[in-house]
Every structure is written in C-alpha cells, then in structure tokens.
C-alpha cells in the first residue's frame, strides 16, 4: 500500500502538535510495511519518499521533475533550505514562492470554485496554500498512490483535487478545526475549506472524541464516516541531560498564547499559588495574540520574577524548558488533542490538563480539571509542590504510562480505515 501523505508540518519543522503527530504515525505505518510519500510545503518540487522507519529522520527526498532522482539531505541547513518553515501557519513571515504549474488543474473540480476564490486572496497564507496545492497536484499526478491522506485544512484543497484527478480514496485527518483555533466563530473561508474537505473525503479521522463530536455538531458530517484515532506520542530525541534553571518548583504553560489555550487561566492560577507559596516559578512559553495582555496582567499582579515569559521556542529550546519543568499546566478551553502534556510527562513532569482536551481521553496519570476551575488547579499545584512524595509517585506513573503509549496501536486503527477503503475501491 502506498500512501500520499500531505502535511504542513514535520520535524524538524514544527510549531505545534501537528508535526509531531504526523511524524509518529508515519513512522509506525512504515514499520507496518506501508510506503509513504510525504509532501510538505517546500521551496522546490520535492517530496519525501519514505520506505523504512528511519526515513522519518533522514528524510530522503525526491526531486519530482527530474524523474525520481533520490537525494538525502545531509545537513539541517540544507533541509531548511528545502522545506518552507511551518512557522508561516500562524506567523506569515517566511516566503515560499515559485511552484508555478498545476494551477490550471485547480478549476477542474466543482466544489473548488469557492475554495479557489479564497486561495486567490491577497492574504499570504492562502497564497501559500495555493502554491502548495499546485505543487502537490503535480507531484501526485506524476507518482500516483493508493490512498491520499491529508492532514488539516491547509492540505485539504490538494487532497480534494487529487481525489478527482487520480480517482483514489481521500482520508482527511483532523487534528484541529477552525473552531478550536479561533476560540470563536473563526474565519468563514477556512470553515468552508474544512467542510468541503470532510464532505469530499471518503473517511474522516478525528484525533479525539472531543474533535469527532465537534465535527458532527458543527460540520454535520455523519457519524459513520468518522473514525477516532487518538494521537500517541513518541519521543523524537532522547532527552539530553539539560540543567535545571530554578531550584524552586517550576510550572510551565506551553502553547500558543491565544484564547483557545487558556493562558489567562494560567496567570490566575499563578497568582493563587504564589499568594500561598512564594516558592514557585511560572514560565509561559509560546507566542500569540494574547501575549501582551497576559504580560501586562502578570505585571499588574506584581508577580515579579516569579512569572517569566520564554517567548516562542524552537525544538531544542523546548527540550531545555521541559527539562526544567515540574508541572505542566494545559488549561485549554478547546484542545482537539494536546501533545505538550505527553512530552512533559515523558520527561518526568506531572501534567494538569483541561477536561476539554483530547489528551484527557487517553491518559490516566494526570490531573484532569475544568479549564475554568482555577481554584482547583491552584490547589492541585500547591498539593504537589508541598508533597514531594505524592509528586514523585505521580511523576513515575505518568512517565511509565506515556512510554507505553506507542503509535503502533494508533497506526493499526489508521490501517484499518485504509483497508476498508481499498476493499471498497476493489469492489
């Protein structure tokens, strides 16, 4: 079975959970003998031809137009030159241009009229999606596949087109919807792309029951079409022994500083904890539209050096910050999955997660609290930092649980979905 996998993120180029999730599932699919051709936003007509589990790390690339010439990039810098930074998903800063071609194909699908209008918009991100779509369609036409696997809306236009052109089943994998990202109504144009993608798809995979329910409720996609496959977690790099920064218990918020993620709850919790116990440090890592507001609020509370902002972190910095974290707080208002708690738990931190998160559905050894219940979150933190024994116990159990939380089981579920579609296709 050969899968054409379409993603906007992949390590080492990741900003959120998406890249890590695609990485984990692709590796397990490869282990199970599935061939994966991966198309990422690139600065040239490249795709990555993955055949062995280790390929997810060395990313052997194929230059499409030259007809399948294989080349393995040797340095990180070389890779960076090839792959457009996924940073542009939320921070449209880095340019990707010059795909050309294939744009004429965009008109060939009826559903596509409206989407095409959107992608022709001046807004930079849409132009990037247009470029990606054109390039991906060209590559897809050239190499073909058995199943198209598109992750999140940025790759849905390409998925839809390829399904029409290649007559192959389309599976859309929903890691997050515009409802989660926007924390409100969101962008109607993106809703339309998400809706069309799910409607055109043969199957929809949701990363949690939380997300599946949202898809049914908001997009009216029939229940039978949706499969829930929880994300798992695989540690990409063995954690290096990074130093601790503070002697005091350190509590981390890691994610976009935006309404959906509940950063305002994090500072309220910080204040409540620090009122009772000065002996703690709160670090906020990430960037986003609420960063300013949160900083001013923390300053107004007079939290001094007990509340620090680490800003946006790259992968290496994430490792360093996790190494110094004792408790990870995920107070998300809406979180389709939420990989940060698993990353933190695998390194020995204790996680406190919002009940409205996909990750809460699959882990046992974490505290699950309503995102609005700041008193409960604060008292849980106080209890943990004042009872080292209880902390150690929870930390140990969490670490073990995450270690057993492999992608293999999730990959089996994905394969089951793929298998059904292939059977239908054969009939």
């Amino acid at each position, binding site marked *: 079975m050969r899968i054409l996998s379409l993603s906007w993120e992949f390590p080492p180029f990741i900003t959120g959970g998406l890249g890590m999730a695609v990485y984990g599932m692709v590796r397990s699919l490869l282990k199970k003998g599935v061939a994966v051709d991966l198309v990422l936003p690139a600065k040239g007509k490249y795709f990555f031809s993955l055949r062995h589990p280790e390929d997810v790390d060395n990313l052997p690339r194929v230059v499409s137009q030259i007809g399948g010439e294989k080349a393995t990039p040797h340095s990180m810098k070389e890779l960076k030159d090839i792959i457009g930074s996924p940073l542009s998903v939320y921070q449209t800063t880095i340019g990707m241009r010059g795909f050309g071609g294939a744009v004429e194909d965009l008109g060939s699908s009826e559903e596509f009229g409206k989407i095409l209008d959107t992608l022709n918009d001046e807004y930079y991100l849409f132009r990037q999606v247009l470029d990606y779509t054109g390039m991906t369609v060209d590559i897809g036409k050239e190499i073909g596949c058995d199943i198209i696997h598109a992750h999140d809306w940025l790759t849905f236009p390409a998925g839809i087109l390829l399904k029409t052109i290649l007559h192959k089943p389309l599976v859309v994998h929903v890691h997050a919807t515009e409802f989660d990202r926007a924390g409100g109504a969101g962008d109607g144009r993106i809703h339309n792309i998400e809706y069309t993608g799910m409607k055109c798809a043969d199957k929809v995979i949701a990363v949690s029951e939380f997300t599946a329910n949202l898809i049914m409720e908001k997009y009216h996609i029939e229940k039978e079409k949706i499969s829930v496959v929880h994300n798992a977690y695989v540690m990409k790099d063995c954690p290096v022994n990074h*130093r601790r920064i503070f002697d005091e218990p350190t509590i981390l918020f890691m994610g976009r500083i935006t309404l959906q993620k509940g950063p305002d709850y994090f500072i309220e919790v910080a204040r409540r904890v620090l009122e009772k116990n000065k002996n703690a440090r709160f*670090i906020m*890592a990430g960037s986003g539209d609420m960063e300013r507001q949160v900083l001013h609020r923390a*300053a*107004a509370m007079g939290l*001094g*050096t007990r509340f*620090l902002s680490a*800003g946006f972190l790259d992968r290496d910095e994430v490792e360093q910050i996790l190494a110094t974290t004792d408790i990870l707080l995920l107070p998300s208002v809406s979180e389709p999955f939420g990989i940060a708690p698993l990353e933190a738990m695998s390194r020995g931190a204790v996680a406190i997660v919002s009940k409205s998160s996909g990750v809460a559905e699959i882990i046992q050894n974490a505290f699950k609290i309503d995102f609005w219940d700041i008193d409960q979150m604060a008292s849980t933190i106080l209890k943990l930092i004042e009872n080292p024994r209880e902390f150690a116990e929870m930390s140990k159990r969490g670490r073990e649980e995450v270690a057993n939380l492999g992608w293999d089981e999730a990959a089996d579920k994905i394969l089951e979905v793929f298998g059904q579609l292939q059977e239908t296709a054969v009939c």
Partner: protein
Amino acid sequence: MLNIVLYFQVHQPRRLGKYKVLHIGSNDNYFDDELNRKILNKVSDKCYLRTNRLLLSLIDRFKGEFKVSFSLTGSIIEQLRRYRPEVLESFRQLAATGQVEFMAETYYHSLSSLFDEEEFFDQVGMHSELMETEFGQKPVTFRNTELIYCDKVAELVSQIDQFKIILAEGAEKILGWRSPLYAYSTYNANQLLLLKYYQLADDIAFRFSNKSWLGFPLTVERFVEWIERLGLLERDGRELYVNLFMDYETFGEHQWEDTGIFAFLEHLPGCALKNGHIRFANPRDAIDSINYQPARLSVKEPVSWADTERDLSAWFSNSLQSNALRTYHDLLKKIKRSGSKHLIDVARGLSTSDIYYYMCTKYFNDGDVHKYFSPYDSPEQAYVYFINVLADLEKRIEKETLV
C-alpha cells in the same frame, strides 16, 4: 542682562541584551555590548567629536565670552573609556578652558531620587567623584535624571552640602503665570533653581529640521531676535536666564549635519554677542549674577523634561514599569544587605532609567520617540528580558548568601 545658559546632556545607556529565560543561571552577561559599542561609535563620530571640536574653537574665538555646560553620566564615561577614550580626552580639553561647567547627577542616570534615597546619595556621590577625577571640577550644580524635579528632590539635594543650584523643567504646571526666565529658589530656599525655557530649547532640539513647523527654517538671526524680545519683558534690570537645556546628541545625531545644525551652533555666539545685553553663562554664574531675592517655588508633583506630559509617565505609567521598578528596587536592597560588592555594581547598572523608558506603552507622538530610542521590538520584550535578568541576579545573590 540676558544670560544664555547652554547645557547639554551627554548620556548613552548600557543597553541590555535579549536575555531569555533559558539564559538564567548560565549567562551572567546581561548587556548587548556589541550594540552599545556600535551606537557609541556612531554617536561619537556624528556628534561628540565634531561638536566638541566646534565648541572648543568657539571658546577660543570668543575669549571668555562663550560658555557651555555639560552633564556626562557615569554610564557614558565608562563606555567612552572602553571604546572611545579620545572623546573623553576632548571633553577634558573643554574642561581645561575654564569656560565649561560640569554638573552632578546620579551616576547611572537612575530614578533613585524617587525610589531609594540611600541609593540616590550613593550614586550622586559616585558621580561627583567622577567629575573630579575626569574633569577636575567639584560640581556645584545638580541636575536630576531627565530633569525630574519636585520638593522631595530638593530636600534630598539639600542634604548634600556642595550644591548651590538645581536645574529643572520650566513646565507651566509648576510656574503658572510666572516666567522661566527668572531664577527661583527651592521650596526650602536652599538652592537656586534654573528652569529650562523649553519652547526655545525644543525649537533647536526637536523642531529644527521640521519642515511643517512655522519657524522653519530656523536662522540664527531669527533665533537671537526671539531671545532679544524676551529681554523687553524686564524693565527693572533684573538678570534673566534663558536656559537652553537639551540632549547633546541634538547636534549631528537627532538633527543631522545636512539640516545645518552645526552652522547654526557655530554662528549663534557671534550673532548673540552683537547685542550688548546678551551674554553666555554657566549655571554656577547665577550665584553671583543674581541681583534680586529669588521667589520660592514649591513643586509637589514631579516634573521632568520627558514627553509632552513632562511628568514621570515615560518611566512609571504602566504595570510593566511599576512591576519592573518595584522588583528591581526590592532586589537591590537585598543585594546591598548581602554586602557583595561585585553584585552591587552589577545591580546598579540596572538602575539606568532608559531600561524603564523602553517599557513605556504610551502611543502617538511620544510612543514614536520611545520606539526611536528602543533597541527592542516592543515594550513587552523590554520588560520580559529585564525580568529574566532580575531572576538571574536573584539566583546569584541567593547562591552567594548561602556560601
């Protein structure tokens, strides 16, 4: 007589680097000295060397009739020693003419007069000593950071014997109907107060190259005419002081050479001295020249020369600034109690007012000025890096106290 008192503020902060959370505990270099060196070089070449040379030649040409005064902060002197000693040497040449007065202020251009009296006395003492070693003058005039002044500042200054004069902003809100041209005395009558004539000073410092300003282009003749007219107000022969206080960087840096700013300065003394009623003076000259009993001026709320508000809002108006200042001053006290000489020096370097100025979030015109001076992308960034630095310093002092 109309006394033109030219006073130039010479200061460059030692700017902090982009100090991240992950640097805490592993990096004790808080400053972006590469940037500091670059800026100092630029300003030295465009302004300091060139203007010093011009002033030296004017003092020479007008044989005792042309005078200027300066305040150089400890921050800039340390940086000049390190990167551009020849600039410091040219200030010493100016000092050697005897026509140039050097004033006292807080060593680090700090806000200590508002937040920490003990620190204020220490820093003023350090700075006076510096003036003596560098320029051979024991200052008799005090100017507080950014001309911040109120009765409380006067009270503090009165506790130091050496000062006879204090400079302040001639803001309407402290003068009311009165004119900044007269010398006043502090509320306790201990020092003379000379107040900046900000309309005329800002004509040079801010508006000189502004093409949409009615006074543009400003010629020396017109400027001197404006000054002459001020003299008509006084019919009883009382001494008037036209206090033109401004940043030294006005010359060549804020106002570029092609605006004609150097030519303006070059022709100012000759044109002004043609009028027999005008002379140049230093602040200290007022002690002898004043020929009337100065009126007392009480200033309850602090005034400064910063921004259109002329108050403390440039450094102390939002939550970032108040949390930063409070956290800093608490930490400074803690470090002083520990007695660690080395860390006290490090901590004092963080008292420079510019650090808090960069955190200012006022918008419109003043926001632009803040942005022009700030090495950071936003006030929030300035705050974040500074708090990280304090967290590191706090760790260091805790460690030393344990040992």
